[in-house]
């Protein structure tokens, strides 16, 4: 009975999607808190920047993010899977594209918290956005980009 198998949890399929070769929209799946609206803003921003984003509300965000290797202290407010990588938080599209073209041997990247002025967020940008590497081995995060 699938209801007994944790019906409320989003099925955590391993989202290793092939990277599109052509200039088609890049497919991405974004998990968000059902009550957080800024994540929708981020999805809209990505769509404007050539991504095909599927948004999935979930109450299991912390688990999803943690299972993807993002340390608790570096979590953003939503978790996206794109091209075999995890992208946590309001990471600018250019940085996501850089990740997808460089294809480093890492689990993904994260922009912790909800910096004002970041894509999908309101307010002015007040400081540089520091985007961290999410490693597969759970090593201490290093800086991937600072924009």
């Amino acid at each position, binding site marked *: 009975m699938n209801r007994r198998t944790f019906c409320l949890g989003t099925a955590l399929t391993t989202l290793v999607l092939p990277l599109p070769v052509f200039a088609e929209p890049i497919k991405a799946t974004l998990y968000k808190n059902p009550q957080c609206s800024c994540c929708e803003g981020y999805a809209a921003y990505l769509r404007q920047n050539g991504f095909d984003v599927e948004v999935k*509300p979930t109450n299991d965000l912390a688990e999803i993010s943690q299972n993807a290797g993002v340390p608790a202290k570096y979590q953003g407010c939503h978790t996206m899977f794109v091209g075999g990588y995890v992208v946590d938080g309001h990471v600018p599209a250019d940085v996501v594209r850089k990740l997808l073209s460089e294809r480093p041997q890492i689990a993904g990247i994260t922009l912790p918290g909800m910096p004002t002025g970041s894509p999908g967020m309101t307010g002015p940008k007040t400081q540089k956005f520091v985007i961290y590497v999410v490693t597969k081995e759970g090593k201490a995060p290093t800086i991937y980009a600072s924009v």
Partner: protein
Amino acid sequence: MHSSLGPAINRRALLVGGTAVAASALFPRIARATAAVPKAIELTAAPGRASLVGSPYPRTNVWCYGDRIPGPEIRLRQDEPVRLAVRNNLPEDTTVHWHGIRLPNAMDGVPGLTQPPIKPGESFTYEFTPPDAGTFWYHPHADSLQQLGRGLAGALIIEEPEPVPVDRDVVWVLSDWRLRSDAQIAPGFGSGMEAAMSGRVGNTVTVNGGVSEEEPVRAGERIRLRLVNASLARIMALRFEGHRPIVVATDGQPCDPHEPDNGRLLLAPAMRVDLILDMQGEPGRRYRVVDDFYDELSYWLTQLAYNDEPPLRAHPLDGPLRLPRNPVPEPDLTTAERHELRLQGGMMSGGGMMGRGGMMGMGSEASWAINGHSMTGDGHVGVPPLFTLRRGRSCVLSMRNETAWWHPMHLHGHSFRVLSRNGAAVPHRQWADTVLVRPKQTVKIAFVADNPGDWMLHCHVTDHQASGMMTMLRVA
């Protein structure tokens, strides 16, 4: 107050308690209030194992009262004194808060504020006489995220002197768990991100300690259904397919009987609702109880499963739905002292996150505040009260939610009238001890500060409470 009742005393204590009940029935109510022998109950908090999900999953390692989930249903009678000896067999300090009971401050179970914490291996005896009949519950007030999140909770039912005419009195303790695929509780209590959002909402909801496929009912019967939301953070919006539940009490206090708005019953953490359900469905059929609070995450909690027996009666009972009033003092709004509580912080509350410098450090800092101040963890000793009310004074509290999130706000030691939401009067004479304040909403409540002591006032989304949405009022 400290005592360590051994098992040998247990049987005798129960025997004495039983006698007290029998005797109390012989005397009028006024005599019961001064009954010399309190009912004695023992309660042990300890690690245990419980079958939350059922076969083929293993049992879940939990923390529980009385070796079961939920804890034993404690049934007392209005005005009947009770002695509850709580033993702590947990690996850490604990206390018990008798949620919603208007009791003496020293019995309220707030560590550091109303009592020293109960250390592992020690006991504490709570003594009080419940003045109000209704649906209440008990849970720890120490390391609440972990202790409530691992299962420490139980229903506390105070019975009316005269039973309410229903065919069955049913309690559903609703609990929300975050389980992994091996049915064990996911670690990670106190995630900074969750604290600043909706809290630790889980992925498995149980009814009385188990995932429920169905709850048996019979056509024609009238049920008093007592709902207790014992979740850490999950807000529920329940619909009873094919049925018209009537709300007769909120947080234990009777209200004018009414149907919930749009048939959707909002039940946030710590809230209770008493329903009268006339089983007007067809024998042999099943009707879902759906929770659709979170967008796109609707699920069904259980099903009302009718047996094949013919209806118990041809027509629904005409008997009175109205419960007898409790002796809660009516606040005097003309002379009331007025205070404002601004609920602040969290994600999306104007740019970045309050108290986190706009972004970084999902650490142990406060995420929330009340009037600019953040009391975190189990609370702080020695912090002055937000304000002091003279004993007997009526008070109107305006709670303005400046955040983007929902907050069930709980006041200890008192029941309050819910006056208005965004200026619109709240109908049906509703009382509460925990009121759900929507994002950007202002809720006005009123109460008589008739219970002396220091009383916590906090959000019952436990992550919010532990990360700053907590304060204290003094009645002196």
